[in-house]
């Protein structure tokens, strides 16, 4: 029996603006992610994908329904969760190496150890030679890689990623995808991966969840039976892949039709 690490049960989320305007971002959403699972979420823009991740981190509690992580209701920020933000969230006043080493420092490591750990991650995300650059001196894709390293260095048990590779070029994206899969299989983290890219979702995930248009809820969910370990760049040419991709496209198209 797999143990669930993330359980969302009938979760709704309303945003109420200062003027009293109410936006319903999620409606009666239910989702279970099991330990070690790689779950991808796709859905039309504005359907509440980022909102869902925000609730799992504990940054923004649900309006109704329950969110449980490791079997316990979410009350604050769990140190076992890593979150790669959709927007740029690296610290502009810190150099690359300082940005990456900040997590261990926050968690009580001395700065020398943290720097050593960070140096290793600088290499893994391919930023050697840019250690002392500030974020504004990097390209958008490089900044994203800093954000990834910043999150990975904490070795989270649950990894939430909000369109992490959207800003990367095809080659770097493929590299980072491989790196992510390697990391995931090595550490057995549970991953929730939000993306716009259906092929990316299928290539990476064990399960792809399709959300309805906003206010979102789960429309359908697909198990991805492709064998592991996967070669991300090759997987997309198999018949199984193409078939799944068509199916999910069809589901999504139904949601974005105006």
């Amino acid at each position: 029996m797999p143990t669930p690490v993330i359980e969302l049960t009938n979760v709704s989320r309303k945003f109420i603006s200062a003027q009293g305007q109410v936006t319903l971002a999620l409606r009666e959403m239910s989702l279970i992610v099991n330990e070690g699972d790689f779950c991808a979420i796709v859905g039309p823009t504005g359907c509440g994908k980022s909102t869902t991740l925000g609730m799992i981190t504990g940054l923004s509690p649900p309006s109704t329904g329950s969110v449980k992580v490791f079997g316990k209701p979410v009350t604050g920020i769990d140190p076992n969760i890593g979150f790669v933000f959709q927007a740029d969230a690296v610290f502009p006043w810190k150099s690359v190496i300082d940005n990456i080493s900040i997590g261990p420092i926050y968690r009580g490591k001395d700065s020398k150890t943290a720097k050593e750990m960070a140096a290793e991650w600088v290499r893994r995300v391919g930023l050697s030679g840019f250690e002392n650059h500030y974020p504004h001196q990097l390209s958008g894709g490089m900044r994203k890689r800093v954000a990834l390293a910043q999150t990975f260095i904490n070795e989270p048990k649950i990894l939430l990623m909000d369109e992490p590779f959207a800003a990367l070029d095809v080659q770097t994206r493929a590299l980072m995808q491989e790196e992510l899969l390697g990391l995931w299989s090595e550490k057995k983290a549970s991953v929730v991966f939000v993306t716009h890219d259906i092929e990316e979702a299928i290539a990476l995930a064990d399960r792809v969840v399709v959300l309805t248009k906003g206010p979102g809820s789960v429309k359908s969910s697909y198990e991805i039976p492709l064998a592991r370990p996967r070669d991300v760049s090759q997987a997309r040419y198999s018949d199984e892949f193409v078939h799944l991709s068509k199916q999910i496209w069809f589901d999504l198209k139904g949601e974005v039709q105006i």
Partner: protein
Amino acid sequence: MNTTTATTANTPASEEELAAIAKAVNRQRLVIFLRVALAIFTLTSWELAVRYELIDPFFFSQPSAIYEQLYVWLTEGTAQGPLWRELLVTMEETVLGFLIGSLLGIFCGIALGRNKLAGDVFSIYIKVANAIPRVVLGSIFIIMFGLGMGSKVALAVVMVFFVVFGNAFQGVREADRNLIANAYILGASKRQVTFTVVFPSALSWILASLHVSFGFALVGAVVGEFLGARHGIGLLISTAQGSFNAAGVFASMVVLAVVALAAEYSLTALEDKLLKWRPAQFVEHGM
């Protein structure tokens, strides 16, 4: 010119690059030339206007008289003592007021800005405090602290505090929510977020306010002296005013202007050092 040699040392600069560098250098020179020319033009027209009796030197003085007044002050000293001592008194009041006021302002601004409710409650009063003319308090401080240095420092503190406080407060409020959320998720405590995220984000706001507030500190000190003192540039101005000596007033202004300019330069240098992570506002073409 150093730039040119440095560039050629690394990579042989192309014709266009050299041309671009030359253009930038020339522009720099043009700006400096025009600045000097403008100053000379203004001073000459002022002097000539007085000589040809277009304006009355009794009210407007004239550059040569101001120069003479400065010369006398520098060589023979003022009626109150040597000029440098008067200036030192004013500077001491200004710098003390500036330091106390800005440190208090930064501390209170960040503390209040981090507390949502307190922030909402106080924000209106900050606006009010910024709008009322705080120099008026100078009279009260003279009554409270007497003619010595205390009353001037107090006025400078009040002048500086609200500006820095307002900016620090605003800077904290404007700190990027995403960055704060990211820090919490990476494992930061509230304290760590304050020091490693909120303070650095507010820093550019705070430094911007320091530019203005040094001037305010100077105003506070001088007005304080003006209202009643035994030493200082403000007293010099008020004495000159009492004897209808317009040149004395202008000469004091020149002294203050030099001080303000020097402070401005040091603050800009400090800002450049602390905010080196910021993208350049504009890139000099070809540099």
